């Protein structure tokens, strides 16, 4: 009897713990009903999404999705993850939207649905200034170590274009590659040119340079939702059309991507 009592106490505790946390990934109507839009962004990836000096989530992705939440009339909840944790977060229903500088690849599109691109970038190779690498052939050597981001298209592209080099994958964000390069763990890095260029101001000036040759063609960047969130997917496309028309899109890009004004405020 004592053990029966204890079993029921245990079950009660477990049920309480679960219920306090259960939430439902939803389509547009669910989000509006819930009153909250949950967005998965990458951790510490300024200027896309990061936590500023006041401890507030901010960045280009945050501003875009905050605008979405305002238009929907709901609150916004920003959840941050490592790069390789973004898609699992969306798939496991933790977030409604994946808002990052993610390229829609065919493999990813098997699992999640991408909205229309909000930006185009190209993959680049970057090294330390003065390291002497000029062309791809210089980097494509067995003694060269190239850093890439775990789970990114940079990882796949690097393996494709630099098959002879040693590829090392870093968990976290693109900045981990730059860090690793400065620390001497890798000789070069492969990532989106926009991601590298916008990260440069945080590091000593003129310490990093991009090689001229870009890898692959223009790559789109898109937000993503679950396959079944069809109306949310359409809504996001309409949202971007709207903000391109009314100038909010240009303001966002100009502030976060093209200038460094944001560093003063955040």
């Amino acid at each position, binding site marked *: 009897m004592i*053990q029966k009592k204890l079993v029921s106490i245990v079950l009660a*505790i477990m049920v309480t713990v679960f219920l306090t946390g259960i939430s439902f990934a939803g389509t547009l109507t669910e989000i509006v009903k819930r009153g909250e839009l949950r967005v998965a962004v990458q951790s510490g990836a300024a200027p896309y999404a990061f936590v500023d000096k006041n401890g507030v989530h901010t960045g280009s992705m945050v501003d875009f999705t905050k605008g979405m939440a305002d238009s929907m009339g709901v609150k916004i909840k920003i959840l941050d993850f490592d790069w390789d944790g973004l898609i699992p977060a969306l798939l496991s229903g933790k977030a409604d939207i994946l808002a990052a500088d993610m390229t829609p690849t065919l493999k990813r599109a098997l699992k999640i649905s991408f909205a229309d691109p909000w930006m185009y970038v190209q993959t680049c190779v970057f090294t330390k200034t003065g390291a002497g690498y000029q062309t791809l052939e210089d980097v494509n050597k067995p003694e060269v170590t190239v850093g890439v981001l775990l789970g990114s298209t940079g990882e796949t592209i690097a393996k494709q274009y630099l098959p002879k080099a040693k590829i090392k994958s870093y968990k976290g*964000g693109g900045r981990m590659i730059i860090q690793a390069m400065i620390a001497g763990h890798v000789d070069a890095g492969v990532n989106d040119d926009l991601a590298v260029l916008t990260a440069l101001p945080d590091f000593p000036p003129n310490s990093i340079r991009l090689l001229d040759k870009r890898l692959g063609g223009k790559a789109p960047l898109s937000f993503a939702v679950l396959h079944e969130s069809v109306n949310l997917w359409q809504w996001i496309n309409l949202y971007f059309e709207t903000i391109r028309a009314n100038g909010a899109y240009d303001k966002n890009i100009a502030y976060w991507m093209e200038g460094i004004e944001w560093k003063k405020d955040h």
Partner: protein
Amino acid sequence: MMGFYFSRLVEIYPFFLKGLWMTSKIAFISLVTCTLIGVILGIFRSGNNIILKRIVGVYVAFVRGTPFVVQIFIVFFILPDWGIQLDAFSAALLAMAIMGSGFICEIVAGGIDSISKGQWEAAASSGLTLTQQLRLVIMPQAMKVILPPLVGQYVLLIKDTSVISVIGVMELTRVGWVTVVRIPEGLMVFSLVGVLYFSISYPLILLSNYLERKMAVQ
């Protein structure tokens, strides 16, 4: 250069305090839930019901045999497949509860097992029910054996909250990790993180040492 980074670090200090607060919240809630569940499991584990003992044994083996970071990934990314969807904070609490209760279960079971059979028999012959035996005779004595390693386990649990940073919870270690990519002064950033952890762990370690000495005298 160092000065420049130092001033940025000072600017961002409140962020670290926020992280410390999050760590403390998670730690406190986890300690309570782990202890509650752990005590119950420990009673099962040291009881007479072989089936329960075995089941709890399997649970404990899993918790003690796999790294906490792997358990967190399982709770966070795999449970949703079974219909349990949790946000990062709740998943963190659940993972901590599962892990901590496994360890506390063994401590409690060890404490109860250390009480000689004679005590159980004496209590039973005094006409007490099983619940009363446990509550009035066995547990008070077992507590002396349980308390020092229990407090030691609390310190370990507080430190394990740092692993939760992998699922994005903005606790103290994550704050350090996110900061160091923008302020590349690893020594400064993580010294600060270390000092803040030290401030909440060390008092508990002192308490554990004190309890160990106090209980050993008897």
